[in-house]
C-alpha cells in the first residue's frame, strides 16, 4: 500500500546546522519509499521513558535512496523536544512514523508554479519543486523570513527555480518585507498558473488572498500543533469548507496538511465558526 504509514526505528545518519536550523538525516526505508511531496513524519522525543508524550511533526525536506532510503527533517529549536532532537548524533536511533498526511496534488499538464515558503516551512518545497520539474513545470521560488539567517534553502532555490525572490523583514537579505508583498509581482512576471505555499497560518492567509485575486489555484500546507499526527487525538483541527459547502473542523494531520487555500477559513482559525457542522447553537445542532 503506497499511502499507509509505518512506524520505524531509524538510525541517524548525519546531523548538520543550516543557518538557524538543524537538519537530521535518518535511515528509514519504509518511509522514504512511500514519500510524496507534502507528506510529513512524526518523531517521538526524549527517548524511552520520556516525559514528553506528544509526537513532534516535521515536513520531510529530502528523501535519498542511500542505505535503502533516508529522510531529512529540518527544524528550529523551539522547546525541550526540539532541543533533544538537536542534540542527537550520528548512529543514535529515532522513532519515526510516516509518511503522514495528504501530499501536494500535482498538475496533470506542464504549467508554471510559484512556490512560497516562510522560514523552515520552505523545507517542504524542494521535493515538490523536483516533482513539478519532472512533469515539465516551470518553478519560481519566493522565500521569506524575519532575518537572513532564517531564510531556508535560498541557494538550492536559486539552483532549481527559474527565478528566486527572497524577502526578509529586516532587509538583511533580498527585499525588505514579507513574501506576500512580492508575490503579486512574481505571479504576474511568471504568468503563474498555480501557487503552492508552506508556512505559518498568517502567511498562508496572505498568499491565498493574492492567489484568489489572480484567480489561480493555491495549495497550502498548514502548520497546526498536533499530538499524534495519525488522526486520533483531534487536536489539530482547522475550519475548512467541504465540497458540499459545509464548514467542518477537519484534522490538519489526516485531511491535510495540504488544503486548497480558498477552502481554509483563515479568519476563523482558532475558533469554531458559528456555521460549522456541529457548532454550538448552530443550524446543524
Amino acid at each position: 500500500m503506497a499511502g499507509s504509514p509505518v512506524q520505524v526505528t531509524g538510525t541517524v545518519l548525519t546531523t548538520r546546522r543550516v543557518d538557524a536550523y538543524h537538519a537530521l538525516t535518518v535511515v528509514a526505508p519504509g518511509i522514504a519509499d512511500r514519500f510524496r511531496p507534502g507528506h510529513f513524519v512524526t518523531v517521538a522525543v526524549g527517548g524511552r521513558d520520556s516525559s514528553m508524550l506528544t509526537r513532534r511533526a516535521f515536513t520531510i525536506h529530502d528523501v535519498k535512496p542511500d542505505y535503502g532510503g533516508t529522510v531529512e527533517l529540518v527544524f528550529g529549536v523551539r522547546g525541550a523536544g526540539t532541543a533533544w532532537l538537536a542534540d542527537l548524533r550520528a548512529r543514535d536511533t529515532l522513532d519515526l512514523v510516516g509518511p503522514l498526511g495528504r501530499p501536494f496534488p500535482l498538475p496533470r499538464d506542464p504549467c508554471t508554479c510559484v512556490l512560497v515558503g516562510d522560514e523552515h516551512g520552505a523545507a517542504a518545497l524542494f521535493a515538490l519543486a523536483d516533482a513539478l520539474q519532472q512533469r515539465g513545470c516551470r518553478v519560481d521560488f519566493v522565500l521569506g523570513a524575519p532575518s537572513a539567517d532564517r531564510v531556508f534553502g535560498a541557494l538550492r532555490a536559486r539552483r532549481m527555480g527559474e527565478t528566486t525572490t527572497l524577502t526578509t523583514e529586516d532587509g538583511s537579505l533580498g527585499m525588505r518585507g514579507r513574501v506576500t508583498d512580492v508575490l503579486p509581482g512574481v505571479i504576474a512576471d511568471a504568468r503563474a498558473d498555480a501557487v503552492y505555499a508552506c508556512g505559518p497560518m498568517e502567511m498562508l492567509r496572505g498568499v491565498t488572498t493574492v492567489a484568489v485575486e489572480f484567480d489561480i489555484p493555491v495549495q497550502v500546507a498548514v502548520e497546526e500543533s498536533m499530538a499524534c499526527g495519525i488522526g486520533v487525538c483531534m487536536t489539530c483541527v482547522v475550519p475548512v469548507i467541504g465540497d458540499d459547502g459545509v464548514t467542518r473542523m477537519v484534522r490538519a494531520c489526516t485531511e491535510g496538511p495540504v488544503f486548497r487555500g480558498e477552502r481554509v477559513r483563515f479568519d476563523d482559525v482558532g475558533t469554531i465558526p458559528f456555521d460549522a457542522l456541529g457548532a454550538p447553537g448552530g443550524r446543524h445542532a
Partner: protein
Amino acid sequence: MTADLRTYLAHVELPNPVLTASGCGGTGRELAQFSDVHRLGAFVTRSITMAPRAGRPTPRMAETPSGLLNAVGLQGPGVEAFLERELPWLAERGARTVVSIGGGTVTEYTALARRLAGVDGITAVEINLSCPNVEDRGRVFARDGAAAAEVVASVRAATPYEVPVIAKLSPDVADVVAVARACVDGGADALAMINTPVGMSIDVDTMRPSLAAGTGGLSGPAVRPLAVRCVWQVHAALPGVPIIGMGGVTTGRDALELVLAGACAVAVGTALFHDPYACPRVLRELEELLQERGFDRLADAVGLAHRPAGAQPRTRTDLEESSL
C-alpha cells in the same frame, strides 16, 4: 505455555484485556493502519453524541510533564453518521466495539441508548459521565452519585439485557466509591475508571491559558497513581464488579499495576498518541509479565495486591498441590 488472557465484562467474554480508551483511538481506521482492530480486547469509540459536534476551538492540547491536557469537546459526527459509517466498518473488521455515549441531559443519554438498542455489532455501551449536566448548571454527572445513577438506570433500562452497560467515572470527586456504588445500584454491569481529572496550564510567554477552553482533562502517566488509587478503592468496596482500569498506561507493567489493583481489563489512551502500536505492545508485555510471575490465567492476578501482606499469591503450583 501461554497465559489465558480472556476476561469478562459482566457476561461478555473478551479474548484479551487490552482496550483502547474512549476518544483515543479515533474511528478505528486510523489505528488499523498500524495493527488490526480485531486483535484488541475491544475497541472503545470516542463519546458519541446525538447531534454532530464541532468541539472546542484550538489550541485544544498542551503537553505537561508526563501528561497531556486536552479540551477537544467531544468533536464527532453524531450518532446517525456513526451508525452509518463507523460502526459497520468496525463490525466488518471483526472488532468488538464498546460504544461510548455522551449527553447533556438524562433524556439525551436515554435517547442515545434507545437509538443504539438492537443495532448489531455493539459489544457494550460505556456511559461517559464526565459531561456537563445542562440541567444542573453544568456540573458533570460523575461528580454527583444521584445524577450518575439516574443516567445509568435510564440507559440500562433502554439497553437490551445482553449488552453490558459500563459507567465511566471521574476521579474529581470526594468519594469515588460512593459514586461507583450509586452507579452499580443504578444497574451498571461494569465500571471504567478513570476519566481525565481537570487540569490547567498557562503559557508564560503569552501569559494566557494554554488551552482555548482554559481548563482541560489531564491524561498520561502523570495521572496513573490516581487511577491505581481509584481502582484499588472501588475494587476493595465492590469486589464483584468488573473494572476497566485506565489512566496513563504505556507499558505492560502499568497495565499489570492496574490489574493487581483490581481491574479485569485495561484501556490504553494517551499512549496511542505517542505510539500507535501501544495496544498490541502492552498486551504482549502484560502476557510476558504474567508468565514470569507464574500466572497462567489473567483472572488470578486481578486484585491480587489486596491480599494480606505475607500471603502467597494463588499460583498454579498451589492449585496442583491442593488437588493431589
